[in-house]
């Protein structure tokens, strides 16, 4: 029994890590007033571009070095996620395009990019079979050497690759920056009331661009973690599923607080796979159990809307383009 619970917690954390990257990235983006619904697509791109980087490296050298495996895939992943968010920032800030439409288009595009390269990457290199980056996957999965010696505790809480710890560190650091620094104050002001921020001399456009791009890069890491650590370097089309949307749901569940996103992600990760741990479920009841995270999100939305507590509301100018008033 204990070992089942331990293994469930472990699995919940593993499922939660990509969600944590995604939701932290989206929180940082939304704090600037940009509702980036392209996050699911960006996470796909973050995953597939990591695969591409790792694949090219593994195929160009005889003996791979683990650290270089990580560096190559990490860099391609970050760059491609940044480019995706740059598209979003350019369209919505510079061209003042509608944020929802832009975001949804970006998600459709990102999923398409992922599946296109997932299907054709091997053909470009005249290979067949399925994509599987053993060396890179192993490098990402390497965990603390003493974890296995700590028994059940080590197995449950310390058996992750470095990206998992990075996710938590990023969330904690983001929380500190948002709440305790001048940069965070400025960013929050922009998301609440860009006209006021502008009048106070804050460069609204710069902040919106940067937070969108940084947020996108963090979210992209979620995709990278999924393909490198969770599936150990293997890519299957649509394998990432709807986790991107779940990440956006967590933003609401965590009330736009990166620190709360940590626990929320693990809860959602648990809800996502709890069906596996409930014995004797038919496949149709499994699908119903899988709805839980979304039902919880709707419940949270209802509760925060009914309570009307100002601190728990989304940034006031979320989803709105900012035009400087001119006469």
């Amino acid at each position, binding site marked *: 029994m204990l070992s089942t619970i331990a293994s469930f917690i472990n699995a919940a954390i593993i499922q939660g890590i990509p969600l944590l990257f995604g939701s932290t990235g989206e929180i940082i983006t939304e704090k600037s007033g940009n509702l980036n619904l392209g996050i699911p697509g960006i996470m796909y791109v973050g995953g597939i571009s990591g695969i591409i980087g790792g694949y090219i490296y593994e195929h160009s050298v005889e003996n791979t070095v683990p650290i270089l495996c990580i560096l190559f895939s990490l860099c391609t992943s970050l760059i491609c996620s940044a480019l995706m968010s740059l598209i979003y920032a350019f369209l919505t800030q510079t061209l003042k395009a509608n944020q929802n439409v832009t975001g949804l288009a970006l998600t459709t595009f990102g999923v398409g990019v992922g599946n296109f390269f997932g299907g054709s990457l091997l053909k470009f290199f005249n290979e067949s079979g399925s994509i599987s980056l053993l060396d890179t996957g192993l490098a990402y999965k390497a965990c603390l050497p003493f974890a296995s010696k700590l028994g059940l505790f080590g197995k449950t809480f310390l058996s992750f690759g470095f990206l998992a710890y990075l996710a938590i560190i990023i969330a904690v650091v983001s929380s500190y920056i948002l709440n305790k620094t001048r940069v965070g104050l*400025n960013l929050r002001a922009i998301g*609440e009331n860009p006209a006021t921020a502008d009048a106070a001399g804050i460069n609204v456009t710069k902040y919106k661009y940067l937070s969108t791009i940084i947020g996108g890069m963090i979210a992209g890491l979620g995709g990278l973690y999924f393909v490198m650590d969770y599936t150990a370097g293997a890519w299957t089309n649509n394998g990432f599923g709807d986790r991107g949307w779940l990440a956006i749901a967590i933003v609401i569940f965590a009330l736009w607080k990166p620190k709360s996103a940590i626990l929320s992600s693990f809860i959602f990760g648990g809800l996502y796979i709890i069906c596996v741990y409930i014995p004797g479920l038919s496949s149709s009841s499994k699908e119903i159990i899988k709805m839980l995270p979304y039902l919880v999100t709707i419940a949270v939305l209802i509760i925060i809307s009914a309570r009307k507590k100002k601190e728990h509301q989304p940034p006031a100018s979320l989803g709105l383009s900012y035009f400087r008033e001119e006469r």
Partner: protein
Amino acid sequence: MSTPAIELKNISKTFGSIAANKGVNLTVYNGEILSLLGENGSGKTTLMNMISGIYFPDAGHIYIDGKEVVIRSPKDAFDHRIGMIHQHFKLVDIFTAAENIVLGLEEGGRFNIKEAENKVREISTRYGFDIDPTKKIYEMSVSEKQTVEIIKVLYRGANILILDEPTAVLTPQETKKLFAVLRKMKEDGKAIVIITHKLHEVLEISDRVSVLRKGEYIGTLETANTDESELTEMMVGKKISLNIDRSEPKDSVDRLEINNLDCITRDGVKILDNISFTVKSGEILGIAGIAGSGQKELLESIAGLQKVRNGEIIYHNPKTGSTDSLRDKTPMQIKELGVRLSFVPEDRLGMGLVGNMDIIDNMMLRSYRKGKSVFLNRKKPRSLADKIITDLEVVTPSANTPIRRLSGGNVQKVLVGREISAAPTVLMVAYPVRGLDINSSYLIYNLLNEQKEKGVAVIFVGEDLDVLIELCDRILVLSSGRVSGIVDGRTTDKSEIGLLMTKGEEGGEGNVEE
């Protein structure tokens, strides 16, 4: 006196073809309070915006402490120690007072909100403000928010303070407090400009008064040597003849009766206070007042769009001869009785017309319920649209052109045309000639006169006193949500109305719900 803190020489600014300021001169010394007096649209705020870096003057010079300066941005203004407190506060609701005050400041060192809070407390004690720096803005009253704005400016080390109609949102008690603070700042050697149109406040707080009228500088007086009537005359100027036709009202009977109407805004401010008057058929009743004196709420109450707290609105129906109370009716029922609101807010397309739809579809907004089948009948609306286009000389490529592509005057004609076509018994128009050229304006005046001759009771909310005096049979003057007088358009003059408009609340009664 010594060198002025700030001196403006020959400042001019035009927006498009409209001159907002023409060769304005202004001098403010350290340790004095200067009132900048003028009607709406006289260019007070534009002038101050040029000092605070929001607009850049087309011509003229600005001197600070005797040295000529160029102010291109709000940051430049800060650097010259100029701070402006705008009418609409620029504050982030979910931040604390202190967070709002330090927002955007580039102070060296680590960000420390505690230090900022202490500095805010220091400023508060020095000038006698009463504020908790850790309180969130959304929990604050209007006057507290204003205090935060003032401290924000002082925190940045401002020496010249400009306040744009600071008392417009305050209760008399809060105004007294503000004035006490302003006097302390004056003793502290700061130069203070307060923009206002309330004469009694001018006389109470300021050392000198500068008057603007229609963008022009009229003059500066020592407050001690002047009085209300002299200032009013400077503010409204001499009468200008417009030659608008005005016929004698025929067979006037009471049509609409308003008794003791009270109205409260969402923030709990009393916007209409004990309003009583009668509107007669076959006459134009003008409503004059400083912007925001309750004109909008009054019209909306009659149209059923604004919740009324007290009082009654009685309609004498000419068809049935019965009397109806409009107070408990929905806008739809009121419209069916023949009371028409052609409301024209600053944003013309905001209420009444849909910008992206064409003229025909906009006609149908009033008549779509009439059809019997599920399909729309566009025939009648089309002929109505064509009729309005020819009768009112609307300049448009066709009746199928989206409204937003028409010029302001033509949009206005479409809106008024549609309302008139429904054969109303009460027609309410607010600022119907705002932004229109002379010819279009006269066309609208003629339309209103036509309606009046047909026996319609017309309510006309206007801002130009010359127009009100020449067009209206009677003029009701609103001041801070109260009727300060009803005068005859044929015998009154501008300074009488001007005085009534600026009467304010000398009595010192509270107008906020306790």
